[in-house]
């Protein structure tokens, strides 16, 4: 009897945990960060969360506030809703272009510090203002957060593997041999569309690559195991054909020729095996000879375009391919610490060695 009494006492003395019944919560599913012109409140915070309307429909509510810091702004959001604000269901965190230029780390810091936010929350950039994207009301599309999350998941599955959540961004940020990237979205005719890749140096946004340029970037990042290659190639004199290749990245490695020479030399080897999905040229692509020729043309194209891209990256001093990781592997810690890595990266001589094999020409013939 005594035991029962003690356990009842224990049971009631502890009291209940803090109740968070889901229908009383504002479950933030996306936040956006922007800068304002206001000097007092330099941060603009946009949060969006699902609500259930009076007639039982699933809808969303978006609140925009200005504040000194992200948590201070969040306190202001709290004053603007009848529901209890919770960030445990946050899926996407959007950063405006301007705030990303200043550096993402302070904002990420406050995201990571909150234990209710998982490290799998996805990050993305917004061209111009993040609030524009979150405020946009697309008809019959539902939650913008869900839309963005699905979009990002799709990008990862397809050939544009950014795969960037908080964990991966911070991993690449703290790795001194590689720089993070993030996908960019923008509002486009009452729709949210993917518009390239943002290149970071440390945590600061440097440049946004157009989608056409970004394609080659993913070809050289080893994360991408398969994808589509769509390009115009010069088949003859003054004759262009468009070709689409479903490829698989069979081999990918980056080699640093020697550690002592300055400027350093690096080579990126890739081997693609692909199936032709579309070819508009006049020749018969099922002919092995023509295939060999086209393989050569594609190789040339990749090398040429890839070189252009890499030169651009070097000029911007951003290293999303992680070439510095291989440089680091070639030297000891002292040497690496002494190295001005961005300068040496800029001076580096990087060439591309691509090997393209056409596996089949599809079902036609």
């Amino acid at each position, binding site marked *: 009897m005594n035991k029962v009494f003690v356990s009842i006492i224990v*049971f009631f003395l*502890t009291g*209940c*945990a*803090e*109740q*968070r*019944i*889901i*229908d009383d*919560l504002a*479950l933030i*599913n996306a936040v956006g960060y922007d800068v304002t012109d206001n000097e007092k409140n330099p941060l603009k915070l946009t949060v969006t969360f*699902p609500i*259930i309307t009076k007639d*039982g*429909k*699933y809808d969303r509510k978006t609140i925009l506030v200005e504040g000194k810091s992200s948590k201070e702004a969040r306190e202001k959001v709290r004053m603007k809703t009848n529901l209890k604000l*919770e960030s*445990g*269901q946050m*899926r996407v965190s959007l950063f405006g272009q301007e705030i990303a230029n200043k550096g993402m780390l302070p904002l990420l810091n406050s995201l990571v510090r909150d234990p*209710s936010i*998982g490290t799998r929350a996805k990050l993305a950039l917004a061209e111009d203002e993040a609030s524009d994207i979150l405020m946009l009301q697309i008809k019959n599309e539902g939650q913008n957060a*869900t839309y963005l*999350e699905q979009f990002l998941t799709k990008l990862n599955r397809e050939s544009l593997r950014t795969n960037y959540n908080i964990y991966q961004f911070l991993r690449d940020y703290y790795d001194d041999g590689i720089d993070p990237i993030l996908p960019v979205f923008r509002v486009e005719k009452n729709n949210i569309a993917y518009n390239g890749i943002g290149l970071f140096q440390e945590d600061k946004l440097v440049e946004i690559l157009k989608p056409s340029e970004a394609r080659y970037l993913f070809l050289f990042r080893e994360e991408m195991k398969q994808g589509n290659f769509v390009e115009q190639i010069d088949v003859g004199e003054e004759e262009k054909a468009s070709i689409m290749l479903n490829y698989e990245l069979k081999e990918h490695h980056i080699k640093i020729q020697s550690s002592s020479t300055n400027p350093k030399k690096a080579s990126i080897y890739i081997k693609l095996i692909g199936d032709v999905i579309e070819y508009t040229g006049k020749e018969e692509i099922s002919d092995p000879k023509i295939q060999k020729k086209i393989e050569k043309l594609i190789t040339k194209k990749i090398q040429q375009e890839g070189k252009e891209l890499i030169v651009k990256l070097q000029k911007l001093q951003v290293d999303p391919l992680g070439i510095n990781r291989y440089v680091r592997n070639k030297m000891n810690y002292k040497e690496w610490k002494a190295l001005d890595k961005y300068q040496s990266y800029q001076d580096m001589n990087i060439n591309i060695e691509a090997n393209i094999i056409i596996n089949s020409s599809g079902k036609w013939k």
Partner: protein
Amino acid sequence: MRKDRNRFLKDFKLQKDQIRNITSDMRESKLAGESILEQFISDFKNSSDLSVTEFPHLTVKIYYFSYLINKDHYEQFLSMLRKITPDEVQPFLSHSEFKALSDMSDVEEAILSGSVILFTEKQAYELPFQEGKGRSIAPSETETVILGAHDAFVESVDVNLSLIRKRVMSSKLKTIKLHVGNKAKRTVYLLYIEGVASENDLEEIKKRILSVHNDGIVDTNMLVQYIDEYPNSPFPQFYTTERPDVVAYKMFDGKIVGLMDNSPFAFCTPVSFFDFMESMDDFGQRWIVGTFIKITRYIAILVTLLFTALYVAVTTYHYEMIPQALLPTLLESRSKVPFPPVIEALFLEFLLELLREAGARLPTKVGQTIGIVGGIVIGQAAVQAGITSNILIIVVAASAIASFVVPSYLLSASIRIVRFGFIILSGFWGNLGIIFGMGILIIHLSSLTNLNSPYLLPISPMYPKFFKYSLIRGPFKKKAERG
């Protein structure tokens, strides 16, 4: 019967001469016979259903309960008795079929079990003319199987013994007859296979049964509660079954089986938790299928125990755990409900228990109404009225279905009770409460014993070798394992 009668008469002629010599010895028992009769009459006064037949010229009185005896046999006996002279009575009764009783308690037991009692001046005799009235053997309704024998025990212990004897055709099958109760004695048979069952266990269970002096134990399921070690535990400790094939199987497994008269249930001991998770169907199936079904049952137990509690915990405390795609439906269905999830869940679970109990008590013809009322009222109207959420109905229904997967009705009922504890715990502390509950449950289960054998036997204490016999349904060995 005529043949028997001739035999009796022949015996009686042979013994005729001897009788005259022993009349002097009978003087003492003459007094005994009369004193028993007096005591008998005083014990059974006010029993208007007691019938008596007197043969004054033979100084014989016959007492019986007319509805307990076989009338044909009795009539034949009477016709024989009418033909003999007073001198021939004693030799006639010394035939081995008629047992001389010297104790009032024996007389009482005999007449109540359906024998005819014949009093002479010297002795009381039991004439075994019991009538085997009762239900005929029918398939079990509580433990149905698809692959396996369909007969089940009935109320008559003789029939039950015969069902077991037919399955264990060996002289090694031993039976011990015991009595429980004080005023109204009930017979309990302990059955075991000599050399397979443990002698210590046998002594222990015998001791326990003999120490029960309570009256009014009318069924095996009651009896086992008088002899188990942890009467305050919600979990059943003795395995009771209606199926003779289960009993035979358990006996070959070294278990001791108890049968009680007028109860269609047998108990088996020592058993563990995993015996309650077994059905004869598992053995009829291929071992892979059998194992799969067994694993399904373990999952079902977890679902019954935890599913509703998990719903409560997640919707009250851990909204982070909800998948994005489920959030809209969950929010929509919860938005109309005015109660917190604990109250909502307890309400629906309680309603379901009411439905289940009503279904068990109502006659089958009315029982269908319960299904319709339950299905429509709870399924549709409760949601439309905004008392419960759609998702909770699915959760509660799933855990109810899972509770019916547990083959033992006793265990299934215990688990349903424990489930309420989990729901309350999760309402107080969320997932932490569920983990607390699991901890307490596992501690409790592993501290239980049945006849000094641990309740979670192959797991705690750990004997991985026995997993294939109890945890899963391992393949049969083609070699004989026991001599």
